[in-house]
């Protein structure tokens, strides 16, 4: 059979991930060290794992309500109120999903019809664009810049809006740049959106991982924004629970209702064990979050300092667990830089253009690794740069 003809064109047109290629190469190298991954090196806090085990021991192995366990939805609302001062009704405004990714998918599918434009600030997480394209939506990329601290500026947003604009994706704290938007930054965007019918998907999955004593502002907490915002959050990054596959969406009841309808058709309900574990995470793990955040923060400063010292200008990220050093001074493209570094020194970074064209000239470095691992990688990168200069 000619599968090429059978596969739906929109699915066939999806680009393979630029990250995959590097990981495949790295996997073949025995002494390769990677700073590539986008998930915590910590294990899920023990109390949370234990709660999962206990739920299994008690035989809680069935589906839950489509929208998720009522008790978990209540816990989520309490948590969001406590941490971000936003009010949601557990019965109509919360949907528990299979990771934040499903929430993004559902939100886009619930809102976007063919021809609708979706504004996506770049560089960003690699899934917004393919999900948009699969629905027939048109991705409108807005390049954020290092000189603006990789924030989305109100004038950039204004310039991107057309009568066809349906949805704005706000990915802050940002993967891969580590950029964060302050409350004032968000307020400036809110002004642009006031009076329009543009919806906002605020992906705040890294909302607990904000450093230097700052606190993340939830976009829905801004006056007048809750009615147009779907907040996406989850347990993966905050509680080191990537493998549990659990996230959630919060938003206006009519939108959550439609998202729940799609969710019950294709997923039924999020994993039951994970939901029981997640309740404990929300209730009991503030100290664990603080411990992990403190550790990430020290690593973040180590990397920013080291890259700047090596001559790779590195913007100081305020959130997530990535730094995004600029490699333009080497005269190489991101792909060339990462490939040579991998071949010569066996260090795997992710080329910045994997996160959108505006990521060209940068690479993403994850600090979800032990300090000893980071030190070894930094040593090799330093050697690589020195050899580059000597051979120039």
């Amino acid at each position, binding site marked *: 059979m000619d599968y090429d003809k059978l596969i739906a064109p929109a699915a066939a047109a999806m680009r393979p991930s630029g990250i995959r290629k590097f990981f495949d190469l790295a996997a073949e190298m025995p002494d390769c060290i990677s700073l590539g991954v986008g998930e915590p090196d910590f294990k899920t806090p023990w109390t949370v794992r234990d709660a999962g085990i206990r739920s299994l021991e008690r035989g809680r192995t069935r589906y839950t309500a489509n929208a998720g366990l009522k008790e978990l939805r209540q816990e989520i609302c309490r948590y969001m109120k406590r941490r971000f001062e936003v009010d949601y009704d557990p019965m109509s405004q919360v949907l528990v999903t299979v990771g934040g990714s499903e929430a993004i998918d559902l939100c886009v599918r619930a809102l976007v019809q063919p021809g609708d434009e979706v504004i996506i600030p770049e560089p960003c997480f690699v899934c917004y664009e393919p999900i948009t394209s699969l629905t027939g939506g048109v991705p409108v990329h807005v390049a954020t810049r290092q000189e603006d601290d990789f924030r989305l500026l109100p004038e950039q947003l204004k310039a991107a809006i057309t009568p066809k604009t349906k949805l704005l994706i706000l990915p802050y704290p940002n993967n891969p740049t580590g950029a964060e938007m302050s409350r004032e930054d968000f307020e400036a965007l809110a002004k642009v959106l006031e009076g329009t019918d543009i919806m906002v998907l605020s992906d705040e999955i890294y909302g607990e991982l904000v450093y230097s004593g700052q606190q993340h502002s939830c976009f829905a907490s801004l006056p007048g924004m809750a009615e147009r915002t779907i907040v996406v959050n989850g347990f993966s990054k905050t509680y080191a629970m990537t493998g549990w596959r659990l996230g959630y969406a919060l938003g206006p009841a009519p939108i959550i209702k439609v998202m729940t309808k799609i969710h019950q058709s294709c997923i039924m309900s999020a994993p039951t064990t994970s939901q029981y574990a997640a309740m404990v995470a929300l209730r009991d793990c503030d100290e664990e979050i603080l411990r992990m955040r403190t550790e990430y923060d*020290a690593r973040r400063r180590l990397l920013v*300092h080291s890259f700047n010292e090596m001559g790779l200008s590195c913007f100081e990220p305020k959130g997530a667990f990535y730094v995004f050093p600029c490699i333009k001074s080497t005269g190489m493209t991101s792909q060339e830089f990462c490939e040579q570094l991998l071949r010569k020194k066996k260090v795997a970074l992710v080329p910045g253009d994997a996160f959108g064209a505006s990521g060209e000239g940068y690479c993403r470095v994850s600090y979800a690794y032990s300090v000893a691992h980071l030190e070894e990688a930094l040593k090799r990168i330093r050697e690589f740069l020195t050899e580059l200069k000597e051979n120039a």
Partner: protein
Amino acid sequence: MEQLLHILEKNARLPLEDLAAMLNVTPQQAGEMLDQAKAAGYIRGFQALVDWEKAGVNQVEAVIELTVKPKKSRGFDEIAATIAEFEEVESVLLMSGGYDIQLVIRGKSFQEIALFVAKRLSPLDDVLSTATHFVLRTYKKAGEFFLEEDPDERECTVL
């Protein structure tokens, strides 16, 4: 200071400059903090954590439980200090529960440790009884795994 201690406890060999970056201070300040931590005795030493079994060097380790007679004026301190003076002894801890003092001792052979207990430890006036437990295998020590660690399997995802 507390953060400095936390970082060093896991990574004692960090270059001063990197330590400073992690603490958000200048290298000079970090150096001063480190000196102060040593002078105040917050940091008792820097040692390599050796896996002697893996290195192929024969070593025997034992945990010894002691019950002792405390002194009227100095409690357990005197006998503990006496035992701590023995070179073979790695650690001396005053314990709650069924016995008083626990010590960890290392020697070249079972016999060496047995001799130490019989000839040096038991004869001490204040030692009432000893119970020696030989270590069969070390799985984890000072926070480090002594077994082969699971490989990092995090590369399987797109992001």
